[in-house]
C-alpha cells in the first residue's frame, strides 16, 4: 500500500513531465523545423532567383549576338553551381538558344523540359519580373524553376553616348528597353529534400534522446523526493508500531530536510511526552498498589475485628444461654426447697421465719423470671428459639392471662377487664409464647397504672383488607351481607390508664434493655427485656406490635398476629 502510493507519485511525476517534454519537443522541434525549412526554401528561392537574374544579365551579350560562344560563357558560370540541374536560354520568341546542366546529361529527363512554356514566355515579356515554379518530373525528382527576362536597352540616338536625352515625352523617347530573351534555371530539390529528411530524422532522434533523458531526470528527481518520504513513512510506520525513538538522517537543506528535522523533533517530543506519561502511570500504579494494600490490610483488620466481635457475641449468647440454664437449676432448687419449707413439709415454720421465707420465695421467683427473660432473649438472638405451633383458643389465652394477673391487679385495686369477640376461630401458633407476650403486656399495664385505674384486654378478628385499605374504600364500612368476612388476623390490645409514654420514646420502647426512663426501672422494677422479647415473639409469629399513648392518660399496646401462623419458627 505504502510502496504503491510512492510508485504512484513517481508515475505521476513521469506522466506529467513526459508529455511536457514531448510537447516541447514537438512544438519547438516542429517550429524550428518549419522555420528552418521555410528559411531553407526561401533561401533556395532567393538563390534561384539570383542565379536566374545573374544568368539573364550575363546572357545578355549572348542572346544579343546569338553567339554560341558567348552563350556558353554565360552558362559556364552557373552550370557548375550546386543544385543547378539544368539551364536554358531562350530568345524573345521562345527559341532555345542554349541549354546545359547536369540533368541534361541524365537519360531520365524528358525533352519536354527543353521547350519554353508559352504562358511563362508571355509573362516574362509583359511583366519583366523574375518568376519561379515547381516542376515534378514523373515523380522521381522535383525541380524548382526560375525564370528571368533578359532585358536589353535599345539605343535610338548616338547622342545618348554623349548626354542623356529626355525620355518622358511621346514619339522618340519612350521606354527603350526590351526583353530580348529569357533565362531559365532549374534547381534540383534533391539536396534540400534530403536535408529536410535529415533534419526530421535528427529531430526525431533528439526528441527520443530528450524524452529518455527527461524521463531519467524525472525518475531521478522523483526518487530524490520519494526516497526521504519513503524513509519518513517507514519511520512513521515503525513509530506507529511503537518504536518511538526514530531518527531520520537529514542530508538535504530543502523542504524535505526541514520536514525530516521537524519530524525528528516531533519524535523526540513524543518520546519525552510518552516517557513522562509512563512515569506518571508508574507512580499511579505504585500508589494504587499501596492503597490496595492498605485497604486489604484494613479490611482484614476489620474482618478480624468482625470475626472477634461475632465470636464474642456468639460466645456471649452461648454463655448467656448456658449460664441461664446453669443459673436456673440452683435457683429452682432454692425455690422448691423454700416452698417445701413454707408448705410445712419440714415441719411448722415459725412465724418469725415465715415472712423471711416468703421474701426468699418472692425474690427467687423474680430472679427466675429475670433469668428466663435473659435466657429467652439470648435464645432468640442466638437463633435457638423455636415456635411450638398448635391450635389454641384466643378466649382461653386471654382468660389464663387475666387469671394469672388478677391477684396483682387486686393488690393495686385495679379493674381488670377482658373483652373478647364472640365466635373467634381457633388460632394456630405457639400458645405458650403468645401467653408470655400477653402476660408481659398485662403485667406492664398493671405495673404502670396507679391505683383505682383500669386495664382492659381486648381481642378481635381483623380481615386483611380491613387494615390494608383502611379508609379509601367506603364499602368496607358498610360491608355487603353476601360477602361474609373471612378473618385473617387476630388483634389483641391492652389498654391502661397509666402514666403514658412520651411520643419521642414510643419508638424505642421495643428495644432491648430499654424502659422509658432509667429511673422507672428503679421505681417499677423489671428487667426491661419484656417488650423486646414480646416484639421478637410476635415477629416470629409474622405479626406486628405497636403502641399508642398519651402521657398522663394511658397507653394502648396492640398485637396483631395471623390467625394461622404458617411459619414454624
Amino acid at each position, binding site marked *: 500500500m505504502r510502496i504503491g502510493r510512492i510508485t504512484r507519485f513517481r508515475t505521476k511525476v513521469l506522466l506529467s513531465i513526459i508529455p511536457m517534454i514531448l510537447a516541447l519537443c514537438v512544438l519547438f522541434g516542429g517550429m524550428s523545423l518549419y522555420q528552418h525549412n521555410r528559411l531553407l526554401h526561401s533561401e533556395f528561392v532567393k538563390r534561384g532567383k539570383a542565379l536566374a537574374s545573374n544568368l539573364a544579365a550575363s546572357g545578355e551579350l549572348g542572346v544579343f549576338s546569338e553567339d554560341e560562344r558567348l552563350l556558353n560563357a554565360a552558362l559556364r558560370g552557373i552550370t557548375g553551381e550546386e543544385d543547378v540541374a539544368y539551364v536554358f536560354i531562350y530568345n524573345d520568341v521562345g527559341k532555345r538558344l542554349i541549354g546545359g546542366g547536369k540533368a541534361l546529361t541524365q537519360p531520365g529527363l524528358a525533352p519536354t523540359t527543353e521547350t519554353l512554356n508559352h504562358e511563362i514566355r508571355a509573362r516574362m515579356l509583359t511583366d519583366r519580373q523574375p518568376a519561379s515554379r515547381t516542376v515534378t518530373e514523373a515523380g522521381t525528382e522535383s525541380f524548382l524553376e526560375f525564370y528571368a527576362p533578359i532585358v536589353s536597352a535599345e539605343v535610338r540616338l548616338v547622342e545618348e553616348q*554623349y548626354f542623356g536625352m529626355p525620355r518622358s515625352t511621346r514619339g522618340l523617347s519612350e521606354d527603350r528597353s526590351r526583353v530580348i530573351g529569357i533565362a531559365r534555371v532549374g534547381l534540383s530539390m534533391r539536396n534540400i529534400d534530403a536535408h529536410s529528411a535529415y533534419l526530421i530524422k535528427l529531430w526525431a532522434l533528439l526528441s527520443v534522446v530528450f524524452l529518455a533523458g527527461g524521463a531519467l531526470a524525472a525518475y531521478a528527481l522523483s526518487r530524490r523526493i520519494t526516497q526521504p518520504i519513503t524513509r519518513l513513512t517507514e519511520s512513521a510506520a515503525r513509530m506507529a508500531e511503537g518504536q518511538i525513538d526514530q531518527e531520520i538522517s537529514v542530508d538535504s537543506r530543502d523542504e524535505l530536510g526541514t520536514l525530516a528535522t521537524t519530524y525528528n523533533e516531533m519524535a523526540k517530543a513524543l518520546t519525552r511526552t510518552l516517557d513522562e506519561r509512563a512515569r506518571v502511570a508508574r507512580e499511579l500504579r505504585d500508589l494504587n498498589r499501596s492503597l490496595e494494600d492498605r485497604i486489604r490490610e484494613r479490611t482484614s483488620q476489620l474482618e478480624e475485628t468482625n470475626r472477634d466481635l461475632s465470636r464474642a457475641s456468639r460466645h456471649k449468647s452461648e454463655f448467656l444461654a448456658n449460664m441461664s440454664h446453669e443459673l436456673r437449676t440452683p435457683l429452682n432448687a432454692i425455690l422448691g426447697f423454700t416452698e417445701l419449707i413454707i408448705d410445712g413439709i419440714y415441719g411448722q415454720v415459725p412465724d418469725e421465719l415465715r415472712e423471711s421465707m416468703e421474701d426468699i420465695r418472692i425474690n427467687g421467683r423474680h430472679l427466675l423470671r429475670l433469668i428466663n427473660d435473659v435466657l429467652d432473649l439470648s435464645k432468640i438472638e442466638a437463633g435457638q428459639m423455636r415456635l411450638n405451633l398448635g391450635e389454641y383458643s384466643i378466649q382461653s389465652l386471654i382468660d389464663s392471662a387475666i387469671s394469672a394477673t388478677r391477684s396483682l391487679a387486686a393488690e393495686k385495686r385495679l379493674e381488670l377487664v377482658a373483652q373478647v369477640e364472640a365466635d373467634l376461630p381457633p388460632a394456630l401458633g405457639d400458645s405458650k409464647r403468645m401467653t408470655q407476650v400477653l402476660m408481659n403486656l398485662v403485667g406492664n399495664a398493671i405495673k404502670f397504672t396507679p391505683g383505682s385505674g383500669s386495664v382492659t384486654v381486648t381481642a378481635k378478628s381483623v380481615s386483611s383488607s380491613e387494615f390494608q385499605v383502611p379508609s379509601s374504600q367506603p364499602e368496607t364500612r358498610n360491608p355487603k351481607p353476601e360477602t361474609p368476612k373471612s378473618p385473617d388476623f387476630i388483634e389483641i390490645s391492652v389498654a391502661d390508664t397509666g402514666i403514658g409514654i412520651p411520643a419521642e420514646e414510643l419508638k424505642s420502647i421495643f428495644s432491648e434493655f430499654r424502659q422509658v426512663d432509667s429511673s422507672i426501672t428503679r421505681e417499677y422494677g423489671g428487667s426491661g427485656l419484656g417488650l423486646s422479647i414480646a416484639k421478637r415473639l410476635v415477629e416470629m409469629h409474622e405479626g406486628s406490635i405497636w403502641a399508642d399513648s398519651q402521657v398522663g392518660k394511658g397507653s394502648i399496646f396492640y398485637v396483631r398476629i395471623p390467625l394461622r401462623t404458617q411459619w414454624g419458627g
Partner: protein
Amino acid sequence: MSLLTSRFTSFIVAACVVVGAMVCASTSGEAAKIIALKSADVDVYNEALEGFKNGSHGSTVIEYDMEGDLQKGKKFLARLKSGSKPDLILAVGIWALQIVAEEIQDIPVVFAMVLNPTTVIGQETRNITGASMNVPIEQQLALLKKISPHIRRIGVIYDPSKTGWLVKQAERLAKDQGIRLVTKAVTSPKDSFTALDAMQDEIDALWIVPDLTVLAPESVQYMLLFSFRHKIPVLGLSENQARMGALLGLSFESGWDIGSQAAELASGILSGKSIQEIPFTTARKTRLTVNLKSAGKLGVHIPKEILERADVVIR
C-alpha cells in the same frame, strides 16, 4: 509644370514674333531676327544656345523648345511660315534639324549640336549649314598614332548607311598619316560581334565611330571586352566610354563652344555670305579622357604629352 511652361513659352514666342515683326518693319536691316528651335530641354542644348546668343550680338534670338516632340515642332514651323519670316533659324539638336530640314527651304538655317549631319540633310539642300558635334577625324587618328608608334592598323566597324561617308573620309585621311584602316561593314547590331571577332588579329587599335548600329550597349560592352581580351586599345566617343573601359575618349569640349561656332556661321550668313560656301564645321575644341586603369590592363604606356593634354585622367 511642363505644360504650364510650354504654354508660357508659346505665349512669349508669339509675342516676340509680333514684336519682332513690328521692329523689323519700322527699323529694316537694323537687328536680325533669329528663331532658335531647341530639340529638348537638355543641359548641353541650353549651353549651346547660350553660346550662340553670346556670339550673335545685335540679333534678336527667339527660343522655342519642341520638348523632343517632332509634331509639336512641325506645328510651330507651320505657324512660323505663315507669319513674317525670320532672318535665320537656329536648329539646336538632331530633332530640330530633322524637322527644319523637312519644312524649311527658303530661310537660312544654322544647326548646332548635331552628330553626323549628313545623315539628316539631303545632298541637294542649299539653305542649311552648321556646327556639328563630330570630332575631327584627323585629330582622332593622330591621337591613336601618338599613343604608340606600333599602332598602324585601326579597326572600324560601321554601318555604311549611317557612317559610310565618315569612314570614307577617314580612310583617305588615314592613308595620309600612314595608317591602315581595317573596316568591317555591318547592317545589324548583332553582326558587330562576329565582325569584331573576325578582326581580332588584324588590328592594333579599335576606333568606335558614332554609328547607331554599332553603338548598342551590348556591342559597346563587347567591344570593351574584346579590347581587354586581346589587349587592343579602344578610342571611344566620349568620357562615358572611357569610364566604361575604353583607353581614350575624345569628344567635343562643350555645348557652349559648339553654340559659339554656330553663332559665327550665323553672323557670316546674316552679313551676306552664301550658305553653300559655308561647310559644316566639326568641334573646334575637344575634350580628351584617358583611362589609366585600362592602360595598365592593356599594357599601354601613355605618353606624357597626351596626359598633359588630357582634360580628364581616370586613375
